[in-house]
């Protein structure tokens, strides 16, 4: 490993080769334990993200999932990549008893989230705690039929699939594995703040700052932790907000109401073996509201939940925060 060590404001963190770019409509960070493999790792990650974007992006008219959404009620052949993404989305719904539902696409469209978020009208004024919709669609993941043997998907007309709750984290898992394999060293990949690792971690572990917004500076309010392996995801209702029909909306939909969830939690971070599992848990926690801490504890997942009053709740062995020495 060619990385030098240096003490920093964040502890004795190593200086590690890091590349940043944009994909899937968000920021990508690739960090390795060895700079020699960066070119190969980046190429592998970019290739995989391009394939995932082509298969799973709801905002691309030419994507596979857009074609399926446009022709619901018919059995459609899908690629192995999209089938894997759909299977994960259905798994998420099963494991969360429907709190994370891939069929909330229509509800998101009704909430005004019908194009890439960066193209939406920014929220006006202070965020509203509660948001309302006059038109709502109740989703239903059980209506989606996947035939793995024949590689087909079928769902009733009127359903729009959205893989936003799972695909990005799943992409991070795949990208980290691809980067580690290509570079032959430890790798961390962050896609929009959903972080996956693979291979050997650096001394002291992978340093991660959990905060509201993944685009924040590492000194933003939050907590710095280290993970030796696995993944970490953070979801927040404070970040991806926009104005629609006079209301401030956000992207976490309660499948039972078809409306953005009422904000019990502002930001939830969860560590898990995979980024997909971590992000399933963070999304479900935002939907579950006050029931989230006990549910996360039952799942034995380390988690940190920040409410709108600034209070922090931790479960599952999430490390306590330490104040600086005076």
């Amino acid at each position, binding site marked *: 490993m060619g990385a030098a060590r240096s003490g920093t404001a*964040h502890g004795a*963190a190593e200086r*590690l*080769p*890091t590349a940043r770019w944009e*994909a899937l*409509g968000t920021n990508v960070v690739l*960090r390795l334990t060895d*700079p020699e493999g960066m070119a190969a790792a980046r190429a592998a990650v*970019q290739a995989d*993200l391009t394939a995932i*974007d082509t298969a799973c992006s709801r905002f691309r008219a030419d994507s596979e999932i857009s074609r399926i959404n446009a022709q619901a009620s018919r059995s459609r052949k899908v690629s192995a990549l999209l*089938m894997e993404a759909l299977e*994960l989305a*259905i*798994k998420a719904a099963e*494991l969360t*008893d429907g709190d994370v539902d891939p069929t909330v696409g229509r509800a998101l469209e009704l909430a005004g989230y019908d194009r*890439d978020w960066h193209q*939406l009208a920014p929220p006006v004024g*202070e965020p509203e705690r509660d948001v309302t919709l006059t038109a709502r669609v109740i989703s239903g993941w059980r209506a989606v*039929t*996947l035939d793995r043997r024949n590689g087909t998907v079928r769902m009733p007309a009127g359903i729009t699939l959205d893989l936003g709750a799972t695909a*990005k984290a799943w992409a991070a898992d795949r990208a980290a594995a691809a980067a580690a394999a290509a570079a032959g060293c430890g790798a*961390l990949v962050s896609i929009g703040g*959903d*972080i996956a690792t693979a291979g050997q971690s650096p001394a002291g*572990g992978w*340093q991660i700052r959990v*905060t*509201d*917004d*993944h*685009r924040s*500076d590492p*000194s*933003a*309010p939050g907590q*710095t932790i280290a*993970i030796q392996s696995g993944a970490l995801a*953070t979801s927040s*209702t*404070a*970040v991806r907000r926009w104005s629609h029909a006079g209301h401030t909306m956000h992207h976490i939909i309660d499948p039972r109401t078809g409306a953005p969830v009422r904000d019990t939690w502002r930001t939830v971070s969860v*560590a*898990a*073996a995979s980024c997909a599992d971590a992000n399933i848990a963070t999304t479900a926690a935002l939907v579950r509201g006050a029931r989230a801490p*006990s549910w996360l504890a*039952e*799942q034995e*997942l*380390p988690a940190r939940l920040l409410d709108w*009053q*600034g209070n922090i*709740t*931790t479960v*599952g062995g999430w490390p306590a*925060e*330490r*104040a600086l020495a005076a």
Partner: protein
Amino acid sequence: MRIHTTHTRDAALRELNRLTRWMIAGSVVLTGVLSDVAASAFSGKTTKHSAKSKSAGTHKKASKTSTGTSTGVLKAPAQTPTTQTEEPAHESAPKESAPSSESAPAQEPAPEHESAPAQESAPAPEAAPEPTHEAAPEPAPAPAEESAPVVSGGS
């Protein structure tokens, strides 16, 4: 007459025996066919609770789909995260937090302050870079060496 009656009875018993065997075989086949039809026609419901969700009180309902890599539970990390000994300088004001009944906060008597929502950095969509859906081939600049933590936040 007596011999004839015995012979007739034996023949009838043999016939009955053969008929019974055919009926049993037919029942087995019919049961299999009907089971297959029913399995294809109706969604299943998993009533077995996983170890980690035994107290959740909810069924994990299965659709007709196979879930591929599904393990039935959300997997915890092999190791829990660890905290860092130093924090950025401006996040030092302790404030009462509301730890749950879980163990981690209880072990830490002075949890760190989290700034009030209004004081936290608000998202600035207009300042965000334009989305690039396609990972267009980019010149790969030499990677920077960084020691700052990677940020995990909402997106």
